[in-house]
């Protein structure tokens, strides 16, 4: 489990800066057919971590790296948290 968490944070922090910046499957289709602009709707919610970056860090790769590492850690906590809630709910049912 510790290994799994370690690998996840490492992927988020070390490999993510080198991910392909080509458009993904949906983006490519949207570009080709020409509905990409429909995805640029009104912004409902702002976040300082837009598109996997950390505000104030100019180096794009470093910024993505920190966002990926922290994100993986945060998601670990979120996953565990939801599992704990589920467990408590099941105990109540029993």
């Amino acid at each position, binding site marked *: 489990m510790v290994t799994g968490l370690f690998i*996840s944070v490492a*992927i988020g922090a070390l490999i*993510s800066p080198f*991910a392909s910046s080509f458009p993904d499957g949906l983006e490519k289709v949207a570009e080709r057919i020409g509905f990409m602009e429909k995805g640029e709707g009104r912004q409902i919610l702002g*976040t300082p971590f837009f598109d996997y970056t950390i505000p104030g860090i100019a180096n794009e790769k470093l910024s993505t790296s920190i966002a990926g590492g922290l994100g993986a850690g945060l*998601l670990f906590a979120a996953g565990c948290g939801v*599992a704990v809630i589920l467990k408590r709910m099941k105990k109540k049912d029993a």
Partner: protein
Amino acid sequence: MQDKMVPLMGVASAFIFAAQMINFPVAGGTSGHLLGGVLAAIFLGPWAGALVITIVLIAQALIFQDGGITALGANILNMAMLGTVGGYYIYYFLGLLFKGKKGTIFATAAAAWASAVIASSLCALELALSGTSPLTIVLPAMAGIHAIIGIFEALITTFIVGFMIKIRPDLIYKKEKA
């Protein structure tokens, strides 16, 4: 629910979030990344697996502005419900037909590939229903590119599941007998 479920859901959420950041080039200037629904479900079962994908989608939309709040419902339906729960049952029924370790590997690969194609096809259907693009254009485009991306989904999922069967077979989800 077993005790290992808590750290396992944590690791699955962290891993799938990180893996979804890794876009790899596929063909013609297009990239793809792991969906991870079938992967999550093979370890956690279909419903906890779907929950993990939902957690990842919510975090992506709320924190990193990826995927979008208004598309969140559709994303959860496509990837967590159809891609993960649907993908798991493809894996489950293929596993009943093809026994043994080779059968499991085949079921894993086929379900992972199908989950990418099915989830993207449902997305195409939604795009058509919303009047974004006619179905006859958007469906073959989405299914086509995700048939290629799905090969990577199958390779990554099969590699991880095959490896884990070797080192930690106890972590693989077993369907409880009703």
